[in-house]
């Protein structure tokens, strides 16, 4: 398979692993955060941790859109699904995420009209095909998915399609990284930067991380070789005492980002003054809101939404895991009350959530247990 197999060649992977061991040396411990959930998933899926020396520690970051969404937003969105004249449309990732009274899939099983869509344009198609119903698209995601939501809203407006609106939960990555760097309990050496987000925003927005916080950032692809190569690039910088932004994912990420996508976002969205993130709390200017010129297509403006705030179950430590302070297995609920089948927190639901990745691919591995015993 083109663009995939060449980044999974076993010999090159072995070589990259060797390079990492050489660069890391035995005398120092490295803590590297992979910001994006897609990276977390790939690291577990391909067993990359097994190729890494024990003093290179990978910390899972907050870049999983489903995981950072607080339960209150899900409840707000689903409160609209109860109306039989509404169709609630969302990505597959959202379907098992628990709200206070169940996940979208459970709402569907109870007879509410909940649909899985693969893009916001599919939700718009639903609205065209069901003129007697109102379609709510429950939008989630970082800058990766925000442009397609923006283009869909522009399309809805130009078509004059009034039975469609967006419940907007789009968030932005930079404030989340800032919140993590501001957190006193984090000692990070560098970042594997998000690949898909960067196709939209480019590499410039990370400069402050290198310049002000003094941490190297390498924007990375998602294949095994991409991730290992990015770690090599980070270790090289650290060895030389440098902190720069580098782009490992040049085949996809332009340094300046995607201007057309950024323009579409600017046309439709503005920054919210603040937004609540699961685990990270309220972060100012960290999320997108639909502009007044699109009020008619903004579910929150158009329909009464309770605006509830729901705290996570007390024992769940999603926040600590999201920030990288705790490893998934260190949460009190992990693998007991909270499993992919009966998730308590969203990190156990999304394939990009670190808990689900850890549970599915790793946690019962005997080798891990042995490592934990010596740690």
């Amino acid at each position: 398979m083109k663009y995939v197999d060449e980044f999974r060649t076993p010999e090159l992977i072995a070589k990259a692993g060797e390079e990492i061991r050489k660069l890391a040396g035995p005398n120092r411990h490295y803590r590297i955060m992979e910001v994006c959930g897609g990276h977390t998933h790939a690291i577990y899926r391909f067993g990359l941790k097994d190729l890494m020396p024990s003093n290179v520690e990978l910390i899972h970051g907050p870049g999983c859109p489903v995981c950072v969404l607080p339960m209150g937003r899900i409840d707000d969105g689903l409160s609209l699904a109860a109306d039989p004249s509404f169709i609630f449309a969302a990505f597959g990732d959202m379907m098992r995420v628990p709200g206070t009274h169940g996940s979208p899939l459970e709402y569907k099983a109870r007879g509410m009209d909940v649909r899985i869509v693969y893009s916001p344009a599919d939700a718009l198609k639903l609205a065209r095909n069901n003129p007697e119903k109102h379609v709510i698209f429950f939008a989630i995601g970082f800058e990766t998915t925000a442009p397609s939501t923006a283009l869909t809203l522009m399309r809805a407006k130009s078509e004059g399609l009034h039975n469609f609106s967006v419940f907007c939960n789009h968030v932005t990555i930079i404030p989340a990284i800032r919140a993590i760097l501001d957190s006193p309990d984090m000692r990070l050496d560098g970042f594997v930067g998000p690949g898909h987000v960067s196709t939209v925003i480019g590499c410039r927005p990370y400069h402050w991380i290198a310049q002000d916080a003094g941490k190297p950032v390498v924007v990375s692809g998602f294949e095994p070789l991409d991730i290992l190569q990015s770690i090599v690039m980070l270790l090289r910088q650290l060895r030389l005492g440098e902190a720069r932004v580098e782009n490992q994912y040049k085949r996809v990420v332009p340094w300046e980002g995607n201007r057309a996508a950024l323009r579409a976002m600017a046309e439709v969205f503005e920054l919210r003054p603040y937004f609540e993130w699961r685990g990270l709390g309220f972060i100012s200017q960290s999320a997108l809101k639909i502009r007044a010129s699109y009020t008619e297509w903004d579910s929150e403006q158009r329909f009464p939404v309770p605006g509830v705030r729901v705290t996570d179950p007390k024992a769940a430590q999603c926040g600590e895991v999201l920030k990288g302070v705790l490893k998934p297995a260190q949460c009190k609920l992990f693998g007991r009350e909270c499993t992919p089948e009966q998730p308590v927190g969203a990190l156990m639901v999304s394939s990009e959530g670190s808990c689900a990745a850890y549970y599915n691919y790793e946690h019962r591995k005997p080798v891990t247990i042995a490592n934990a015993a010596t740690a």
Partner: protein
Amino acid sequence: MATPAPKIKFREPQIEMAHGAGGKASRRLVEGLFAPILFGASHGPLGDAAHVQINGTRIAMTTDSFVVSPLRFPGGSIGELAINGTVNDLAVSGARAEAIVVTYVLEAGLPTEILEAEVRAMARAAEKAGVLIAGGDTKVVEHGKADGMYISTTGIGRLLFGVEISPDSVRPGDKVLLSGPIGDHGITILLARGELDMQADLSSDTRSVFPLVQALVSSAGPGVRWMRDPTRGGVATSLNELARDSGRGVVLFEEKIPIRDSVRGACELLGLDPLHIANEGQFLAIVSAEHANSALQALHTAPGGEAAAMIGEIREQPSSMVSVTTLYGGTRLVDMLVGDPLPRIC
């Protein structure tokens, strides 16, 4: 002495789609509710078909229902699936399908043309598989109560001589054989629903696996320890059931698992694991180490078995689990499917 009342472990308040998806939730429902009430407190591992004795003769018996949407898809249709599915459940329990009875649940308004096409598809599939359709029943439900039609088939089969399959007979060192490429059926259906703007040159793998099972059994005889057709929930779920029932570890070698590029591509795009995708014309077999090579050769020379592969082996550890050795020597665990496979966004 009174038999102790069976313990009902299933405590979920309502049935969800996941209970029918063939993964963990399905297993909880079957083991926690059906088995204790219907089979009593003690029952053996639940296989693809039951073995019952009639006048001293052991026969295999199984039933299956088909609710696929769309009714027709590249490479097959619901009628063909309904025959092959039951033939295959019998085949992997070590039996040749002899007779099948059919139940049709039809929705008012279903065009006769569509029904006729499916009945013909069943007749053709039955003839091809060498099984008699011995009887049937028809029910019609109101418009909107079924997706056009549901079909249920029940079959009986004659047990092949010299094969005794059970998870208990699986030993460390045994090999895992797979009859051909995985994921074709599930991905074909996903694409045929037309919800994804994706196309691939792919068709369902629906077929009778009996000729391949027969080739395997003739070659390996008592060396065949266990078989299963990995339908809903895919190879991962079938092998996890084996791991749990046998207490052994199943280790797969990623590079040995046959997967077509179009299936891999679709899975990569949608964030699905091919090991969780349904198949309708493949089977897994655990064969003793001494018989494994000749068994694989027997599959290779049988028509339709050219792509068969030895994809892994049984080990003591990690017990009751399925793990995959990746191309790079790393390992990961493979769990049963949880719920339905849902595509991811980014």
